[in-house]
């Protein structure tokens, strides 16, 4: 009786296990194993640093003009 139950459960579970292995979502694993994801991070970090540098310089410039004009700071 137990054996029959065991095999019937196994019978129904096996296909689902196979499907579960098949449907493992695809991720950027190759990119990570090659280490090349860091290239993307580097590129983005560079762009981000550039934008921040630009903002800081703009901020400083506006501060200087504010000082020259004698307007108060926002």
């Amino acid at each position, binding site marked *: 009786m137990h054996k029959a139950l065991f095999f019937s459960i196994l019978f129904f579970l096996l296909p689902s296990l196979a499907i579960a292995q098949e*449907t*493992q*979502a*695809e*991720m*950027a694993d190759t990119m990570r194993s090659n280490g090349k*994801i*860091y290239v*993307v*991070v580097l590129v*983005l*970090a560079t762009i*981000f640093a550039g934008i*921040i540098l630009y*903002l*800081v310089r*703009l*901020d*400083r410039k*506006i*501060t200087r*003009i*504010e000082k020259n*004009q004698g*307007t*108060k*700071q*926002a």
Partner: protein
Amino acid sequence: MRKWWWKIICILFLGYTVVAGFLMPVPRLNILNETIRNLYFHVPMWFTMTILFTASFIYSIKYLRSSKLEDDIYAVQITNTGIFFSILGMCTGLEWAPYTWGAAWSNDPKQLATALSMLIYFAYIVLRGGIKDEEKRAKISAVYNIFAYALMIPLLFILPRMVASLHPGNGGNPGFNTYDLDSDMKKVFYTAGLGWILLGVWIASLKIRVELIKYKDELY
């Protein structure tokens, strides 16, 4: 440059977002795959827009109470920055959708509602451009801005949740419960949200300061 601390926080948070956003583990989900990382970049655009529009709504009310040109400048420049972030949010959404929903535009309720509220805010700029008299322009646009905000909230946060939507957290659900479970993502996501909001505030503050210099003769 007296108040630097929050700008430094902004830089640190966004720096963390750019690095951790790509390297931290994310849940393996079909269809979404690695694009789930867009959550750190696409969604904060809308957070920033909402915060900025809320701030400009407050300044518009302030202007109507005080009639000070300064409040009008704050309201307008904050709205302009908010519109800028809404365009970024829309563009990133259009880039993300073809790979996950099958089409850039699928008439999703949230897409439609966002397009509507963007048009409402574009009309704000057009309205301001059409009025020559400064005081009239400030007053009418302040009233318009209050109505625009009162429309945006139900359009973005209530209506899409009452119908079935492709966006997560819609169709009856209040938040991002699909992703909320993952604590790794939460860390990056909240940092990203705060960082982008601070960046929006920073850009808006620069625009305001330029305008304050421009109108200094009338202000002081």
